[in-house]
């Protein structure tokens, strides 16, 4: 069940040697090609020569999403633009997108990483895989697509949206694999049940990710569809989906350590924590050419183990995610920051910045409701104007977040004011 045994089952010493060699190269490359990294290293008095092996990684400064934003769009790219063959983008905290770029080799390595995962999940070249992540700027669709092609499977690029059509094709093509967000898969499972075709599907494996989900939800998916479900993790800043995934033993997500070096740090002191302890996940890319990342703080909270897995792989495993060290929400696979809502409301000029986001999961699909206070300055005594106002807010929010939200107008001062950091989110999904 191992796609690349040479890499996935390396001894820890061999792995450290490989990581050391690749880190030295990466640091050299970013120092000489990316002004941002050079300045950052100079500021702390580090030169490429100081990084002799993977153990020296802690000498390097951290990189954050804000750095990507400040260098929008291509400031952190380490190769000439002519070498970049693709860009993806995700939403940022201020509405400005985070742009990532890939060279041809980056795309190949990405496809390799995803192929490893699909193989780990039991999919083979004989399989027909429906990719039901969104295709486009989001890394999900194309990431899984290239990985599945690399595996040699038959790829059905469904994208998202038309669930009935997806199920019809699942039946007609006898699809055996699917890749999508876990909440969408639960929705698909329900629709399959409604259509009464549960016993006709040939599906055997699902690879789900791009949003937080629980072990219970994974088991529920397996039970409802009679399949194996695997968790795939990734983030566009590092590559996209395929950075890590769980094997058939489901005891943590194997990180492709030959390409991505994981560290776990305490978010407050930024000091490394011991294996098994929960902290913020930090990644350094070891082979990325287009957009190398040095100690990128993912804000995802998890723990790590280096123990050899029952599956035979020796790669480090990260546990299921235990939340985030910032206020980012993942709603229907989309990264959402409360500050985006605030900025959008303020930009409209007709509302107060007092709002409350209520995230829930109804019929396995994430819902977002935003309560906005009705203040005198935009209050009218005609219902149609109030309805127009909520429609307008809904439109502005959709533009800003990329997802639909239900807008509810509420009385002024009815949203609780807090003394300290304002609470803007109620997440009822109970994912952790």
């Amino acid at each position, binding site marked *: 069940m191992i796609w690349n045994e040479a890499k996935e089952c390396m001894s820890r010493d061999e792995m450290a040697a490989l990581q050391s060699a690749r880190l030295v190269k990466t640091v050299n490359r970013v120092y000489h090609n990316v002004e941002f990294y050079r300045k950052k290293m100079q500021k702390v008095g580090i030169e490429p020569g100081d990084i002799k092996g993977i153990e020296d990684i802690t000498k390097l400064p951290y990189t954050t999403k804000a750095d990507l934003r400040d260098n929008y769009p291509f400031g952190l790219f380490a190769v000439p633009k002519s070498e970049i063959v693709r860009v993806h983008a995700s939403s940022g905290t201020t509405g400005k997108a985070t742009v990532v770029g890939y060279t041809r080799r980056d795309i190949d390595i990405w496809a390799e990483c995803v192929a490893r995962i699909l193989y780990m999940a039991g999919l083979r070249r004989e399989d027909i895989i429906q990719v039901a992540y969104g295709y486009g700027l989001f890394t999900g669709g194309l990431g899984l697509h290239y990985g599945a092609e690399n595996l040699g499977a038959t790829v059905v690029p469904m994208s998202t949206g038309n669930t009935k059509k997806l199920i019809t094709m699942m039946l007609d093509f006898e699809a055996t694999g699917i890749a999508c967000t876990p909440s969408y898969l639960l929705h698909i499972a329900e629709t399959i049940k409604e259509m009464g075709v549960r016993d006709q599907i040939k599906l055997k494996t699902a690879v789900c990710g791009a949003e937080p989900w629980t072990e219970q939800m994974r088991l529920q998916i397996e039970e409802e569809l009679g399949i194996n479900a695997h968790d795939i993790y990734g983030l566009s800043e590092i590559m996209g989906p395929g950075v890590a995934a769980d094997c058939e033993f489901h005891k943590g997500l194997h990180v492709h350590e030959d390409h991505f070096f994981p560290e776990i740090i305490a978010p407050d002191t930024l000091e490394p924590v011991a294996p098994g302890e929960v902290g913020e996940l930090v990644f350094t890319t070891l082979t990325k050419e287009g957009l190398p990342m040095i100690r990128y703080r993912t804000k995802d909270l998890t723990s790590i183990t280096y123990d050899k897995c029952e599956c035979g792989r020796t790669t480090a495993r990260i546990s299921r995610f235990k939340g985030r060290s910032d206020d980012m929400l993942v709603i229907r696979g989309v990264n959402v920051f409360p500050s985006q809502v605030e900025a959008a409301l303020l930009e409209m000029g007709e509302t107060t910045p007092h709002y409350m986001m209520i995230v829930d999961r109804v019929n396995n699909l994430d819902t977002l409701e935003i309560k906005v206070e*009705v*203040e*005198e300055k935009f*209050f*009218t*005594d*005609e*219902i149609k104007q*109030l*309805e127009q106002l909520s429609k307008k807010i809904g439109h502005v929010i959709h533009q800003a977040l990329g997802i639909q939200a239900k807008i*509810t*107008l*509420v*009385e*002024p*001062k*009815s949203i609780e004011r807090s003394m300290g950091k304002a609470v803007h989110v109620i997440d009822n999904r109970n994912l952790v």
Partner: protein
Amino acid sequence: MLTKQVSVFVENKKGRMEQVSKCLSDGNINIASMILADTSEYGLLRMIVSDAPKAKEVLEAAGFSAIITKVLVVKFPNIAGTLDKLMGLFNELDLSIEYMYGISTSADSATLVVKTSDNDAAAKVISEKGAESDISVICM
């Protein structure tokens, strides 16, 4: 010619209407007419009261969003067909009705609160042509 109406935004929450009536009671404000328009999430309470500015003040002090809008209060005989005459006058001028409410408890007359797309034009047409049907605008 126009009358001040107080409109209050009321969330669909238990006891919220009672808090409105309590405010008005404490402010010694009398209600001449009212309508609660409902949507799935909130209600909009429109009232003709004895002292509109004061009503707005006490409601706002209690945390409500309240505004004053001007409406037409139209008095006409309690006879079948009179509303049709009034609508006919509005229609001639292409006025649209935003909302209206009223009730008649008297044998002689009925009173209607109306907001049209142009209240001044509506008041003018009633004063010019309403007399023959005994329709008049009154000021509360």
